[in-house]
Protein backbone atom coordinates (compact mmCIF):
# COMPACT_ATOMS: atom_id res chain seq x y z
CA UNK A 1 0.00 0.00 0.00
CA UNK A 2 1.20 3.48 -0.87
CA UNK A 3 2.70 5.25 2.13
CA UNK A 4 3.10 8.69 0.56
CA UNK A 5 0.09 9.60 -1.51
CA UNK A 6 -0.08 12.53 -3.87
CA UNK A 7 -3.23 13.89 -5.45
CA UNK A 8 -3.99 14.43 -8.17
CA UNK A 9 -1.57 12.45 -10.37
CA UNK A 10 -2.11 14.93 -13.20
CA UNK A 11 -3.13 18.55 -12.82
CA UNK A 12 -3.81 21.04 -15.58
CA UNK A 13 -4.11 24.72 -14.75
CA UNK A 14 -4.21 27.97 -16.63
CA UNK A 15 -1.48 30.55 -16.67
CA UNK A 16 -1.85 32.67 -13.53
CA UNK A 17 -4.60 30.54 -11.96
CA UNK A 18 -3.74 29.40 -8.40
CA UNK A 19 -3.35 25.68 -7.92
CA UNK A 20 -2.89 23.44 -4.87
CA UNK A 21 -1.22 20.06 -4.84
CA UNK A 22 -1.71 17.72 -1.91
CA UNK A 23 0.35 15.06 -0.17
CA UNK A 24 -0.57 12.71 2.65
CA UNK A 25 1.48 10.12 4.51
CA UNK A 26 0.67 7.10 6.63
CA UNK A 27 4.21 6.76 8.05
CA UNK A 28 3.82 9.32 10.85
CA UNK A 29 7.14 10.84 9.75
CA UNK A 30 8.30 14.13 11.19
CA UNK A 31 9.66 15.60 7.99
CA UNK A 32 7.86 16.31 4.72
CA UNK A 33 9.54 17.68 1.60
CA UNK A 34 8.43 19.16 -1.70
CA UNK A 35 10.63 18.69 -4.74
CA UNK A 36 10.24 20.06 -8.27
CA UNK A 37 11.45 17.88 -11.13
CA UNK A 38 11.54 19.11 -14.71
CA UNK A 39 11.78 16.77 -17.66
CA UNK A 40 14.97 14.66 -17.69
CA UNK A 41 16.38 16.56 -14.70
CA UNK A 42 17.03 15.66 -11.10
CA UNK A 43 14.53 16.63 -8.40
CA UNK A 44 15.20 20.02 -6.80
CA UNK A 45 14.19 20.75 -3.21
CA UNK A 46 11.72 23.63 -2.82
CA UNK A 47 11.14 23.50 0.96
CA UNK A 48 10.50 21.15 3.83
CA UNK A 49 8.72 20.95 7.18
CA UNK A 50 10.19 19.44 10.30
CA UNK A 51 7.01 19.03 12.30
CA UNK A 52 5.54 22.54 12.08
CA UNK A 53 8.83 24.28 11.36
CA UNK A 54 8.95 25.50 7.77
CA UNK A 55 12.30 25.65 5.94
CA UNK A 56 12.43 27.40 2.60
CA UNK A 57 15.30 26.92 0.14
CA UNK A 58 16.99 30.21 -0.72
CA UNK A 59 16.27 29.95 -4.44
CA UNK A 60 12.62 28.88 -4.19
CA UNK A 61 10.44 31.55 -5.85
CA UNK A 62 7.93 33.43 -3.70
CA UNK A 63 5.25 32.08 -6.01
CA UNK A 64 5.54 28.76 -4.17
CA UNK A 65 4.05 28.36 -0.71
CA UNK A 66 3.36 25.40 1.53
CA UNK A 67 1.06 24.44 4.38
CA UNK A 68 1.19 21.56 6.82
CA UNK A 69 -2.00 21.55 8.88
CA UNK A 70 -1.13 18.30 10.67
CA UNK A 71 1.44 15.49 10.65
CA UNK A 72 -0.24 13.60 7.84
CA UNK A 73 -0.89 16.29 5.26
CA UNK A 74 1.17 18.82 3.39
CA UNK A 75 0.10 21.14 0.57
CA UNK A 76 1.98 22.96 -2.16
CA UNK A 77 0.33 26.18 -3.31
CA UNK A 78 1.41 27.87 -6.52
CA UNK A 79 -0.09 31.34 -6.41
CA UNK A 80 0.33 32.37 -10.03
CA UNK A 81 1.63 29.51 -12.16
CA UNK A 82 3.78 30.40 -15.12
CA UNK A 83 4.67 28.25 -18.09
CA UNK A 84 8.03 27.56 -16.47
CA UNK A 85 6.34 25.96 -13.48
CA UNK A 86 5.16 23.00 -15.53
CA UNK A 87 6.92 20.05 -13.93
CA UNK A 88 6.55 16.93 -11.81
CA UNK A 89 6.10 17.84 -8.14
CA UNK A 90 7.28 15.19 -5.71
CA UNK A 91 6.41 14.93 -2.05
CA UNK A 92 8.70 12.96 0.23
CA UNK A 93 8.88 12.12 3.92
CA UNK A 94 11.55 11.03 6.37
CA UNK A 95 11.40 10.00 9.99
CA UNK A 96 14.02 12.52 11.12
CA UNK A 97 16.91 14.39 9.51
CA UNK A 98 19.83 12.10 10.19
CA UNK A 99 22.88 11.86 7.97
CA UNK A 100 21.81 8.49 6.55
CA UNK A 101 18.11 9.20 6.51
CA UNK A 102 15.93 7.37 3.99
CA UNK A 103 13.37 9.42 2.09
CA UNK A 104 10.09 7.95 0.92
CA UNK A 105 8.68 9.55 -2.21
CA UNK A 106 5.16 9.74 -3.54
CA UNK A 107 4.37 9.07 -7.18
CA UNK A 108 4.26 12.77 -7.93
CA UNK A 109 1.82 15.19 -9.48
CA UNK A 110 2.50 16.15 -13.09
CA UNK A 111 1.51 19.79 -13.49
CA UNK A 112 0.73 21.29 -16.88
CA UNK A 113 0.24 25.04 -17.34
CA UNK A 114 -1.73 26.20 -20.37
Amino acid sequence: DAMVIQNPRYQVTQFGKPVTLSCSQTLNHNVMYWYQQKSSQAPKLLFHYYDKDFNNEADTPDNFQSRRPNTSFCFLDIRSPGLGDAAMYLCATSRTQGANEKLFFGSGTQLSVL
Partner: protein
Amino acid sequence: TQLLEQSPQFLSIQEGENLTVYCNSSSVFSSLQWYRQEPGEGPVLLVTVVTGGEVKKLKRLTFQFGDARKDSSLHITAAQPGDTGLYLCAVIQANAGGTSYGKLTFGQGTILTVHP
Protein backbone atom coordinates in the same frame (compact mmCIF):
# COMPACT_ATOMS: atom_id res chain seq x y z
CA THR B 1 28.71 24.05 -9.94
CA GLN B 2 26.99 20.75 -9.26
CA LEU B 3 27.69 19.12 -5.92
CA LEU B 4 27.43 15.70 -7.57
CA GLU B 5 28.50 15.05 -11.15
CA GLN B 6 26.93 11.99 -12.72
CA SER B 7 28.04 10.36 -15.94
CA PRO B 8 27.02 9.44 -18.45
CA GLN B 9 23.84 11.48 -18.71
CA PHE B 10 22.28 9.10 -21.23
CA LEU B 11 22.94 5.40 -21.78
CA SER B 12 21.24 3.26 -24.43
CA ILE B 13 22.26 -0.39 -24.54
CA GLN B 14 21.08 -3.82 -25.62
CA GLU B 15 19.74 -6.43 -23.26
CA GLY B 16 22.54 -8.51 -21.77
CA GLU B 17 25.21 -5.79 -21.83
CA ASN B 18 27.01 -4.51 -18.75
CA LEU B 19 27.18 -0.85 -17.77
CA THR B 20 28.63 1.46 -15.15
CA VAL B 21 27.31 4.80 -13.94
CA TYR B 22 29.58 7.19 -12.06
CA CYS B 23 28.88 9.79 -9.39
CA ASN B 24 31.74 12.14 -8.53
CA SER B 25 32.31 15.09 -6.23
CA SER B 26 35.12 17.14 -4.76
CA SER B 27 33.40 16.95 -1.36
CA VAL B 28 33.60 14.19 1.21
CA PHE B 29 30.36 12.65 2.35
CA SER B 30 29.41 10.54 5.34
CA SER B 31 27.13 8.50 3.09
CA LEU B 32 25.74 8.39 -0.42
CA GLN B 33 22.47 7.03 -1.74
CA TRP B 34 21.38 5.63 -5.10
CA TYR B 35 17.79 5.94 -6.30
CA ARG B 36 15.96 4.57 -9.31
CA GLN B 37 13.02 6.42 -10.82
CA GLU B 38 10.64 4.97 -13.39
CA PRO B 39 8.65 7.28 -15.68
CA GLY B 40 5.69 8.83 -13.90
CA GLU B 41 6.81 7.62 -10.48
CA GLY B 42 8.83 8.97 -7.58
CA PRO B 43 12.42 7.88 -6.87
CA VAL B 44 12.89 4.67 -4.91
CA LEU B 45 15.93 4.13 -2.72
CA LEU B 46 18.16 1.28 -3.92
CA VAL B 47 21.06 1.46 -1.47
CA THR B 48 22.96 3.63 0.99
CA VAL B 49 26.75 3.31 1.14
CA VAL B 50 28.48 4.54 4.25
CA THR B 51 32.04 3.22 4.57
CA GLY B 52 34.89 4.23 2.24
CA GLY B 53 35.63 1.35 -0.14
CA GLU B 54 32.32 -0.33 0.67
CA VAL B 55 30.77 -2.59 -1.95
CA LYS B 56 27.10 -3.55 -1.84
CA LYS B 57 25.30 -5.93 -4.16
CA LEU B 58 21.62 -5.93 -5.00
CA LYS B 59 21.01 -8.84 -7.40
CA ARG B 60 22.68 -7.72 -10.66
CA LEU B 61 23.50 -4.26 -9.30
CA THR B 62 26.83 -3.56 -7.60
CA PHE B 63 27.39 -0.29 -5.75
CA GLN B 64 30.79 0.95 -4.64
CA PHE B 65 31.73 3.91 -2.43
CA GLY B 66 35.15 5.39 -3.13
CA ASP B 67 37.91 5.00 -0.55
CA ALA B 68 37.92 8.76 0.07
CA ARG B 69 34.09 8.88 0.20
CA LYS B 70 33.98 11.42 -2.63
CA ASP B 71 32.66 9.22 -5.40
CA SER B 72 30.55 6.18 -6.12
CA SER B 73 29.71 3.85 -8.96
CA LEU B 74 26.79 1.66 -9.94
CA HIS B 75 27.50 -1.37 -12.11
CA ILE B 76 24.73 -3.40 -13.72
CA THR B 77 25.53 -6.86 -15.05
CA ALA B 78 23.50 -8.35 -17.91
CA ALA B 79 21.07 -5.45 -18.15
CA GLN B 80 17.41 -6.19 -18.76
CA PRO B 81 14.62 -4.00 -20.17
CA GLY B 82 13.17 -3.80 -16.67
CA ASP B 83 16.30 -1.90 -15.59
CA THR B 84 15.24 1.04 -17.77
CA GLY B 85 14.83 4.22 -15.77
CA LEU B 86 16.50 7.27 -14.29
CA TYR B 87 19.30 6.48 -11.86
CA LEU B 88 20.14 9.17 -9.34
CA CYS B 89 22.91 9.44 -6.82
CA ALA B 90 22.19 11.67 -3.85
CA VAL B 91 23.70 12.89 -0.61
CA ILE B 92 22.25 14.38 2.53
CA GLN B 93 23.94 17.72 3.07
CA ALA B 94 25.00 19.15 6.39
CA ASN B 95 24.39 22.73 7.38
CA ALA B 96 27.15 25.24 8.10
CA GLY B 97 27.52 23.88 11.60
CA GLY B 98 28.18 20.39 10.25
CA THR B 99 24.88 18.97 11.43
CA SER B 100 22.72 17.07 9.04
CA TYR B 101 19.39 18.69 8.32
CA GLY B 102 18.11 16.08 5.95
CA LYS B 103 18.40 17.99 2.68
CA LEU B 104 18.79 15.38 -0.02
CA THR B 105 20.65 16.73 -3.05
CA PHE B 106 20.66 14.74 -6.27
CA GLY B 107 23.11 14.39 -9.11
CA GLN B 108 21.84 15.20 -12.60
CA GLY B 109 20.84 11.59 -13.15
CA THR B 110 21.56 8.94 -15.79
CA ILE B 111 18.74 7.96 -18.12
CA LEU B 112 19.22 4.28 -18.91
CA THR B 113 17.37 2.58 -21.76
CA VAL B 114 17.78 -1.16 -22.23
CA HIS B 115 16.51 -2.44 -25.57
CA PRO B 116 15.20 -6.02 -25.90
